[in-house]
């Protein structure tokens, strides 16, 4: 049987995949590095434009079950380009553009192989774009692995560096374990429901014979475990600090923003479309996971002296905040998904900004927090930008976007009746404030170091873009909130 494919819907994925192949081929013919960078940027730009165009149109779906096989069931499409998907694809592509901008200088400085670097990065983005559009468990797993595999290589790309190699091995091992856990979970869910498409799983779970209940429950929990690795939630978090520190910095940014956003999208899709009727099972599990993740991340971040490690632990903590709304289970789930998505989107902007400034400072002055002391004296604009991003991450005015991110998350958590988790979150924001604020204050202290920061055009552009985004969203945070609630 021949199936029609809606190429318009899958075009963003195809464009990025073609760009990846083009980069790989061009590298074989010794095309200069800068051209490879431009091809990468162009591919992402075109894909982003395409996503914007799709956003104006109506929902598209492809790879659906043919009607002859469908029976009485739902349409069961494997790839859906609805507004949720497009929102995330736009987010992934925009963040990836910033990552590429940060990479341009890094490739030269760390003498990374440019062709491989761009190819692997684009491949991982293909995975992320597919992941957010996937609506069946097999596509989800394949996309998740497509996103993960190139990253191992990217982390290890600084071959001369032992730390990078160690980080890559750690990442690989945790990833393999979590993939195994997830596949086992999927097999249990399939065994219980006999379905792989999320809409069919949901229907089947509604009417599951009670003796299969425990099997399905175990399956859902194990599937969540697989995503917990992607979003660096406890207990799959401990790769994050080592990998962030060992990897080239743009790859750390990629992991903490793009890969994490895709992971949350996958989690939200799976839970809300596939397992809504098992909310009473996975809701409390996620609540515990969220509470542990935010508390552990924040407490360990307190002790960090290395800027990238601090951001790594803080991003673990932030994952906890993002997980929290999903703890509501099936009660008021759409609102919870909207809150998580809003947080992911807002967090992407502020985290990208903070990482971009850290990238610039780390290569001129050093990556330790002490190296940031007195940054404001030589580079007041850079210091102000970093301070603003940090205050946003802490969630205090003038970082209104961060404040609103916290508000929506607490709102959804409270609305779903998980008040205790909201209280845990409230206490955690205080811990978070301590390290964000002491870092920000450090920037304005007197110093003896007088090393100027050479930002570079591409990194400067990345910082400016993130700062512009942060300012706009701090003036009008409703842009993101309303867009997200329309899409979910």
């Amino acid at each position, binding site marked *: 049987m021949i199936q029609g494919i809606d190429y318009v819907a899958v075009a963003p994925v195809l464009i990025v995949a073609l760009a990846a192949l083009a980069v790989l081929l061009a590298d074989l013919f010794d095309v200069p590095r800068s051209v490879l960078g431009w091809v990468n940027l162009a591919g992402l730009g075109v894909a982003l434009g395409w996503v914007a165009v799709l956003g104006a149109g109506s929902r598209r779906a492809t790879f659906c079950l043919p009607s002859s096989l469908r029976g009485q069931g739902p349409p069961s499409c494997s790839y859906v380009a609805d507004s949720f998907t497009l929102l995330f694809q736009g987010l992934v592509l925009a963040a990836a553009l910033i990552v590429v901008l940060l990479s341009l200088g890094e490739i030269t400085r760390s003498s990374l192989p440019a062709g491989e670097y761009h190819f692997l990065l684009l491949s991982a983005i293909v995975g992320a774009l597919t992941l957010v559009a996937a609506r069946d468990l097999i596509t989800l797993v394949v996309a998740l692995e497509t996103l993960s595999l190139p990253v191992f290589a990217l982390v290890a790309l600084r071959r001369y560096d032992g730390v990078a190699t160690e980080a890559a091995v750690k990442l690989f091992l945790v990833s393999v374990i979590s993939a195994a856990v997830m596949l086992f979970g999927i097999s249990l869910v399939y065994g219980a429901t006999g379905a792989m498409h999320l809409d069919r799983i949901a229907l089947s779970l509604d009417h599951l014979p009670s003796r299969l209940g425990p099997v399905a429950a175990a399956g859902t929990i194990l599937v969540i475990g697989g995503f917990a690795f992607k979003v660096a939630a406890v207990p799959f978090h401990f790769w994050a600090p080592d990998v962030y520190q060992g990897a080239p910095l743009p790859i750390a940014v990629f992991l903490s923003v793009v890969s994490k956003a895709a992971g949350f999208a996958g989690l939200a899709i799976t839970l809300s479309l596939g397992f809504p009727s098992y909310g009473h099972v996975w809701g409390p599990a996620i609540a515990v996971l969220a509470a542990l993740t935010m508390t552990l991340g924040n407490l360990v971040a307190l002790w960090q002296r290395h800027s990238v490690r601090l951001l790594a632990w803080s991003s673990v903590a932030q994952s906890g905040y993002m997980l929290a709304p999903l703890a509501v289970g099936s009660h008021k789930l759409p609102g919870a998904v*909207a809150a998580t998505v809003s947080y992911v989107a807002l967090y992407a902007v502020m985290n990208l900004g903070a990482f971009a400034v850290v990238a610039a400072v780390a290569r001129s002055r050093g990556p330790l927090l002490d190296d940031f002391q007195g940054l404001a004296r030589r580079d007041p604009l850079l210091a102000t930008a970093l301070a603003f991003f940090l*205050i946003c991450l802490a969630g*205090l*005015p*003038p970082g*209104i976007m961060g*404040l*609103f991110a*916290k*508000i*929506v998350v*607490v*709102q959804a958590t*409270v*609305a779903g009746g998980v*008040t205790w988790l*909201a*209280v845990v*979150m*409230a*206490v955690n*924001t*205080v811990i978070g*404030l*301590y390290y964000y*604020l*002491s870092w920000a*204050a450090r920037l304005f202290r007197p110093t003896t170091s007088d090393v100027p920061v050479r930002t570079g055009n591409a990194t400067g552009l990345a910082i400016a873009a993130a700062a512009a985004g942060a300012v706009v969203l701090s003036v009008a*945070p*409703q842009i993101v*909130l*309303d867009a*997200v*609630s*329309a899409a979910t």
Partner: protein
Amino acid sequence: MILLEIIGLPLLGALALLLPAARGLTDQTIRWCGVALSGVVLAMVAALAGAFDYGRSQRMQFQLNWRWAPSIGLRFHLGVDGVSLPLVALTALLTFLCFVYSLRHLPTPAPDVRLWTGLLLVLEVGLLGTFVALDLILFFVFFEIVLIPMYLVIALWGGTARRAAAFKFILYTLLGSGLLLVGLLLIGMNAGTLDMVQLAARHGSGLSHGIQVAAFVLVGLGLAVKAPMWPLHTWLPDAHTEAPTVGSVLLAGVLLKMGTYGFVRIALPMAPSGAKVWAPYLGFLAVIGIIYGALACLAQRDLKRMIAYSSIGHMGFVLLGIATLTPVGVNAALFGNIAHGLITGLLFFLVGGVKERYGTLDLDELGGGMLARAPRLASFLTFASIASLGLPGLAGFWGEMLALLGAYKPGGGLPRETFVTFMVFGGLGAVLTAAYFLRMLSKITHGRATASAPVAGLTAYEYAAWVPLIALTLVVGLWPKTLLDLTTAPVHLLLGGGS
């Protein structure tokens, strides 16, 4: 719209000053900009007070109700009634006086005037906004706006231990506001609206008893950190002592009132059955605060720290008034808010003046005889101290007397014996308050001067900043009814028809 202008003007002014383009302005120009901006705000607040319909002070007036973020139900809803009007006026007045005072008297080492002025203006935005916001989330946003500016004012221009004090301040208050947010949303999500007018009118109907109990304790803890209530007060002595003069004035004068205002505006009317459960505990802690504050004052060797601790006692009276859940008590609390703002604001100004002239605030080092060496300053200090200890006829008296009166006859359902005990101990605290102020006065204003060198006289800027506060302390003390009439009707409405 006038409310939007009152909030928007300082905000725009602050943004304009913080832009790099303002770098060319001289310090003097920027100082006058601060005075002018806050002066215009004060004038607008005066116009607002003039146009206010006093016959219907329980109604929200000058309302503004715009959509902001419909997806989370947030509206940009502002308005004033008889409860918020005095606080708005107090904020505008104190900020203006702070700017006037700053024309000449800045903390040492001299701050970057642009940043200084900008931060104070942002602070004013947050304070005013908190008192006029009528949407729970909007209230929270304004509540949070004051944190960073006040942190910076303390951390940049405070005393020797400023950094630790500033951190303590912001971490404590953030912990409070985190819980506050959870409590506010617990109310908002379960009632299905964030509109504070509607929620207050419902008096908790539609919220189960359990929700109300939980919401009151969360909101209450958040506000109690700000107020501050014993034992959550420990940030206050450090922050007040280390902050520069103007910072202490605004902290004590207005910032603390955000907490007690929140109790009256949000906690009591929106979760009344929660309030009934928690009121005895609140009253108990308030009375401990009164006694504790007074005893701590007796033990202080530093004048500024003593005034800081006295705030804990005074705010204890305010909280006790709130805990009675009666119109008399709540009225007393609101009155006490204003009186404390005027008197303690003045006291911190005076302490700043003493520090400038003597270079120390240690009671022993100051020695005696201030009346001989600096007669005007000493008289002002005597006046403010006597007002603060609650001499009848001055502003400090009525709030505390009425709070005790409210405790004599607490609201329905509250254990009378308990509250009468509170009243007795509160009265004891008032006596102790008199004791420590008189001890302080006898120590530094009276007695023989240890040094004979005359001290610099008061400057025109000091007169300009202090005299209005003295005048208002007298006016409010002599004609308390003007202020009480303003708050009586809205308090009855908030408490549910005076039941």
